[in-house]
């Protein structure tokens, strides 16, 4: 595959089907919607968590609250990344996360370092009764002993390949694509 010609791994319908299935799995794992809180990891985890909440509401008639988490300040490589500063905001739903079943939602699971940072950050907000990790794509390549519980698509990508989730309103369409790129991923 040459750079600039991304291969589509999931089209809009495939993503929607996966989200519907993931929503069911989340409800099953957590014994219903009660006490469930979805927390999207900035940025694409945020619209994904909103879509999952929509799916859960459609199926269960109740919508779990949705928050967002920006893990930037919890990264383990702050000093090694480039010089343009934007920190996103972390915003947890009313009522906090103490004693609740928190679902961390992210677009792509790769090394596990984002999730480690998200777990650290959540611990600063409170003590959930349990935490589930839900990702649309697991691309392989873990560097830490962390793995997702609920997955939309599993794919083995090489280090020099880039797996991207496209999702409105951040992107024009809903899809998962893979492309070659110069490999400098952290």
């Amino acid at each position, binding site marked *: 595959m040459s750079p600039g010609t991304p291969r589509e791994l999931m089209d809009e319908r495939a993503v929607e089907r996966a989200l519907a299935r993931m929503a069911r799995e989340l409800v099953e794992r957590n014994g219903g919607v009660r006490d469930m809180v979805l927390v999207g990891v900035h940025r694409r985890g945020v619209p994904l968590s909103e879509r999952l909440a929509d799916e859960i509401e459609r199926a269960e008639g109740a919508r779990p609250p949705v928050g967002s988490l920006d893990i*930037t300040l919890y990264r383990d490589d*702050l*000093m090694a990344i480039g*010089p*343009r*500063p934007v*920190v996103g905001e972390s915003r947890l739903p009313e009522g906090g996360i103490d004693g609740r079943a928190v679902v961390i939602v992210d677009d792509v699971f790769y090394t596990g370092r984002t999730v480690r940072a998200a777990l650290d950050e959540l611990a*600063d907000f409170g003590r959930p009764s349990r935490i589930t990790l839900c990702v649309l*794509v697991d691309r392989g390549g873990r560097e830490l002993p962390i793995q997702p519980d609920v997955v939309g698509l599993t794919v083995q990508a090489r280090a020099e390949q880039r*797996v991207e989730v496209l999702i409105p309103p951040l992107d024009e369409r809903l899809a998962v694509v893979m492309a070659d790129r110069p490999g400098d991923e952290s």
Partner: protein
Amino acid sequence: MPTFLGKDLIGLEHLSAEQILAILDTAETFKEISERPIKKVPVLRGKTIVNLFFEPSTRTRISFEFAEKRLSADTVNVAATGSSVAKGETLVDTARNLEAMRIDMVVIRHSASGAARFLAERIPSNVVNAGDGRHEHPTQALLDLLTIRDHRGRIDGLKVCIVGDVLHSRVARSNIWGLLRLGAEVAVCGPATLMPAAVETLGVRFFRRIEEAIEWADVLNVLRLQLERMQAGYVPSLREYNRFFGVSNDRLAAASDDILVLHPGPMNRGVEIDSDVADGPHSVILDQVTNGVAVRMAVLYLLAGGAPEAAEAAKGGGR
């Protein structure tokens, strides 16, 4: 690795609009950390910061200390009194000794203009100017800018008047440079004895009468009248200063309804500002204090190499 702000923050005079806006945007997101149940993020964990205060300052030092602690840095406060400075040690010797203890950042307040730059050029640690003589007080100006932007939604095109002792004020200088860089119209108002010679060359208007300034301005930044100026003969008496330049509710009646009143503190109530203004609906003085912590967090973070947009790029495809 060069950081977005460079090694040090000495003043606003040489910062670009992009850099100033980036500090304000970062500060905006840092405000939320102070609302959390655990008001701390690990971003400067393991970093040691020395607050080197050669001049007394409670507000600025505490604000820096909160900012440092909320970013998980380890901090040490050194005051001139009781330290080896009182025994005649030079600034550079003090700094070199601190360096030898493997510190990462120095926040310095000094009565000599240029002290912060002097230090920055001689030690490898990041240096943040917390006020040097009559020169600059960049974090104060940044928190003023953030407060104005919070309340007005912009800086560009606003009319801001700085009232009082502009001649001796580092706050005024930093404010003038920052405001002009972001596209505000800036004026000063105060007794001619407390204005720099040819003040207009700084790019500001000069109002001799406070009534005119108030009528013109969207924002008033009222400076503290340092009382020693009275002994030095710059103003005849506090009562007279208040009569001619004091910001009172009567005078604000002529202002636009949504005029903002800022003051860097500590205030001389009844001298440069009346209590009913300081505690009134136009005052955003306590917002300035709150914003001070967020702005200082942003500055320390950016000097340390903070970088999240790149983080987003690095994250592409998940981490």
